[in-house]
């Protein structure tokens, strides 16, 4: 076994056979191995959904929180101990639907975390309703006449908000996915990796074949530092581009900007209250 550091051994996994989540799990494990990140130093934060079960299937610290709420605790964790590698990983419903507001504002906040989103354009755990990224016309037990809402475009939103690292991959290409996850983790700031994956049970429209037919790779000549070009590519919908859309190398992460690590780089847990200083603060309230 190649990825034994992160391997859980023989465990019962709740995903359907053939689910794209397996590929993402393997890609993640391999990326972590290749980056030589220790499981004790990694925190995987997820919400609720089929994708959000991923922390249970690899050896790591994890925070499996509430539906839609992976990004705020991920931010809190990273800001409290910047030496940890923090990945917030969940599905498209969790990150873009229930957690939409956090998605927007976490990008603005820019903690040094990696946001991996399993994007299969459908709700799996609740059995087949539309997700924010479902295409118009997609028929489900709830959207009986087909989806009538405009699909959410996470990449365009992220680029509009000047996210520092924005990428999309397709799990059919494991090598590129691993490579991009690695780059996203190495990026110092918030990094979005939207991973297209089929849901073999509930999405008969966006299948492996559909993704193959409806995606293409950004060219080698493509300049990922050009935000306007990135936005233009992100809004393409006939065929979805794959690769790194945008990198802004000039951003500094939230935890650095807060100032609490300026003079002291130790994690918050190891710090003590300066009671002398507090006493002098309190005594100031005795003055006029």
């Amino acid at each position: 076994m190649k990825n034994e550091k992160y391997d859980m051994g023989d465990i019962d996994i709740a995903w359907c056979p053939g689910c794209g989540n397996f590929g993402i799990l393997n890609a993640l494990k391999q990326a972590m191995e290749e980056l030589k990140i220790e499981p004790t130093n990694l925190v995987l934060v997820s919400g609720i959904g089929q994708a959000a079960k991923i922390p249970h299937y690899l050896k790591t610290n994890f925070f499996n929180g509430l539906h839609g709420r992976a990004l705020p605790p991920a931010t809190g964790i990273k800001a409290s101990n910047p030496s940890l590698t923090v990945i917030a990983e969940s599905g498209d419903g969790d990150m873009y639907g229930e957690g939409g507001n956090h998605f927007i504002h976490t990008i603005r906040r820019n903690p040094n975390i990696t946001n991996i989103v399993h994007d299969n354009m459908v709700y799996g755990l609740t059995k087949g309703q539309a997700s924010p990224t479902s295409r118009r016309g997609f028929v489900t037990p709830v959207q009986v006449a087909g989806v009538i809402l405009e699909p959410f475009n996470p990449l365009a939103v992220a680029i509009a908000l000047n996210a520092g690292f924005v990428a999309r991959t397709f799990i059919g290409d494991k090598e590129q996915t691993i490579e991009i996850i690695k780059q996203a983790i190495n990026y110092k700031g918030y990094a979005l990796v939207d991973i297209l994956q089929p849901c073999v049970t509930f999405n008969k429209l966006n299948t492996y074949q559909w993704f193959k037919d409806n995606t293409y790779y950004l060219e080698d000549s493509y300049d990922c530092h050009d935000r306007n070009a990135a936005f233009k590519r992100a809004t393409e919908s006939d065929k979805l581009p794959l690769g790194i859309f945008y990198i802004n190398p000039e951003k500094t992460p939230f935890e650095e900007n807060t100032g609490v690590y300026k003079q002291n780089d130790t994690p918050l847990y190891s710090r003590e209250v300066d009671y002398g200083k507090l006493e002098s603060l309190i005594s100031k309230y005795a003055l006029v």
Partner: protein
Amino acid sequence: MTNPSTKKGNDISIVLCGQAGQGIQTVEKIFTRIMKSNGYHVYATKEYMSRVRGGLNSILIRISDKPVKAFVDRIDILVGLNKGSIKHLKNRVTSETLIIGEKEVLSDEIEDKQKVFDIPFTEIASGVGNKVFSNTVAVGALISILSVKPEDAINCLKQIFKDKPKELIDKNIEALKAGYETTVKLENFYSVKIESPASGSVKKQILVNGSEAVGLGAIAGGCNFISSYPMSPSTSVLVFLAQKGKDFGVLAEQAEDEISAINMAIGAWYAGARAMVTTSGGGFALMTEGVSLAGMLESPIVIHLAQRPGPATGLPTRTEQGDLDLVLYAGHGEFPRIIFAPGTLEDAFYLTQKAFNLADKFQVPVFILTDQYFVDSYYNTEPFNLKECKVEKHFIETSEDYQRYKLTENEISPRGIPGLGKGLVCADSDEHDEEGHITEDLELRIKMVDKRLGKLDLIKQESVPPVLLGPENYENLVICWGSTFNIICEAVNYLGRKDTAVLYFNQVYPLHDGAIELIKKAKKTIVVENNAAAQFARLLKIHADVKVDHNVLKYDGLCFASDSIAEELNELL
């Protein structure tokens, strides 16, 4: 205050009334500090409208030779800076009230028998150079009435403005003198003289309001992370920790919403920080899912909730004790919690400090339940003693076989944090096994529920007992909780009855076992609450099986007044 040239009093209540943004707070700040630096006990609180400019707001200031810590309806002196001031306070202004103001402004509202000092604040201020100095002119008028020498006030004024340009300080001194002199030269002038407290201890005491006491307590408790969304009247704690916390390494973040705020704070605790959130009822409603998460993850979290009247937006700048039920039951599922309700500044400081240790020790949500009245009120109090404070960290360095939810003999699983030790820390909002992985093992489910709820007995052993004040052999017991305490205390003291005691709860859940006996001992029990549904009386019925005889309730958005409530209590006793 009748009309002799000098009258001795020992407790003067002054109300400043004016538009929002007009500077009554400046008058309050300068005047209270002058009086404190001259050795007097001071107290102040405000009531204000939900607007940034205009409307009418008022500030009550009490000056006394004895400690004063409670709201009163009585107004000895009213400083009316705007048209409508007297009308705004019509239920509290009597023929005994001395009105200070510009007759031109207040003429429509002044009745014939009213005592009035007509002082042209604006004109005097303009004479000094700018009408913005009219606030300081008003301070000058007030100190003349309270027989404070201008020199003593000026020294204090210099201190207050010490970081300001010299020219501005000089103009303010001029304005204060002008206000003083114009007032003492009035034909109908008279003054009062409060005896200075003998001990002179007031000068060394501190002046902090409720939100500052909570904020200082948080720092003393080792708080190093606050994430919150602004909401009146809770925002002042976020502001305090953002400003003062900087020197103590407190990370203060304004979240996009309350949902994010509490989830961020729980994440911070997971990584070993000591985090809190501050909010009010509506914001807390959004946090309830997060409270439930803390229950399941067994995460510590400290929540300051400053109550205001609801439902929904309610009265945003007013006060109420209406969210006790909300806090008591917030969050789906069953899990323990701790609720403090400080009624004094000392309690706000020490209980907030303690909240962090208890949250960490028992891995539960701990609430500090205050309200608008409490956070906006202040009086002089002894400097908080830090010798009683200690940051107790309850997390451990993990070993390779670490299990976050290990079933132990005492219900508490040692809390590891990621990156400290060789173990993995797995926190799960699903029902989980000892390691922290999802489980549907229903026998294990029972064990996990029992473990979580079992902590309540341990918590109870450390509950803060209620404070009994008054005669030991009481027949009547007046029960209160949180911010009403000082008001009730003053009212019952005033009545001076040998058969009546006060029982004050600063921890409202879980109740200390001793409380039941103290309540059952009384022949007559009265619960006083700033709400309409008698929520604490209900809590006593449900959790202590005691039924009280009378409920005294107030829910007009204002706090109780010690003089009015004394009358009301006297009728019931």
